[in-house]
């Protein structure tokens, strides 16, 4: 089994996915180990909630397993497809938050939050996530892919299936909208004290 896992180590994502579709669970293990940390990080940055981020990650990969038998290697990269699915799942969750007053959102459980620095960090991440929830969805998506994931514009265009010009416009407008929303929470962010 170790030998089989080792043979998949350098295989492209799409090859692993196709091997999984043929019944190879070793390929699924290698692919999961490769993409799950990235998906979980993306979801955590957008949602600022560990439990929700884990649910989204599991859901995104469930969709990948489902589509595996029909995957066409020439269509898209697995990572691009996962960025898109994860971002859309996060946007859905952020949309649901819009209808809930901010003070009613439960604080996620975090056993290590006692340190003041961590509390400050958590407040910043929550403020960012709440602000993304209040933005128009496509702006939030573009801003998160550009500024949280650090993707270059051509890849964002591919993930969102839009033109480069639209990406530039969405990220610029999105960043301004984010700043407007965060105006009232500047003190909460506490950067002036840093």
């Amino acid at each position, binding site marked *: 089994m170790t030998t089989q896992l080792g043979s998949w180590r350098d295989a492209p994502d799409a090859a692993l996915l196709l091997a999984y579709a043929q*019944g190879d669970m070793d390929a699924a293990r290698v692919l999961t180990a490769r993409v799950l940390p990235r998906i979980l990080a993306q979801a955590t940055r957008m949602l600022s909630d560990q439990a929700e981020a884990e649910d989204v990650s*599991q859901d995104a990969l469930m969709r990948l*397993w489902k589509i595996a038998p029909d995957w066409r290697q020439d269509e898209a990269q697995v990572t691009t497809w996962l960025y898109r699915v994860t971002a859309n799942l996060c946007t859905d969750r952020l949309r649901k938050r819009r209808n809930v007053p901010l003070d009613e959102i439960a604080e996620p459980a975090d056993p290590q939050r006692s340190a003041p620095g961590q509390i400050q960090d958590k407040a*910043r991440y929550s*403020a960012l996530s709440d602000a993304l929830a209040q933005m128009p969805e496509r702006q939030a998506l573009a801003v998160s892919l550009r500024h949280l994931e650090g993707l270059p514009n051509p890849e964002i265009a591919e993930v969102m299936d839009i033109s480069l010009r639209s990406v530039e416009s969405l990220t610029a407008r999105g960043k301004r909208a984010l700043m407007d929303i*965060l105006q009232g929470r*500047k003190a909460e962010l506490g*950067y002036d004290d840093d």
Partner: protein
Amino acid sequence: MTKSDDDIIDALFAQARTQSPAVPDDLMARVLADAADMLVQPVAAPKPRLWPTFLDLIGGWPSVGGLAMAGVAGIWVGIAPPASVATWTADLIGSPVSIDLLGDTSDYFAEGLLDG
């Protein structure tokens, strides 16, 4: 010195990008369990159905319409053949002819049977 809005937002983005939580073991296990559940078993190829195969052979529904039309026309010609058809068949195969295979011997056999 107070930071500008741009500085604040860029600092916030930079800090948010550092979030890379370790994947919990139970999440990895759940994802792999999903993968095992979703694994598609090879499915036997469906048996070809006769009617669609036949349709493909003859060229689809338009051909079926043509066949039906030809069938109806054939029945009609059989029931009420136009005069030209009767003439044409007579020319082709000639007039009907009766042949008596037994000829005059029939009387002989009839008499023999009666006489015992």
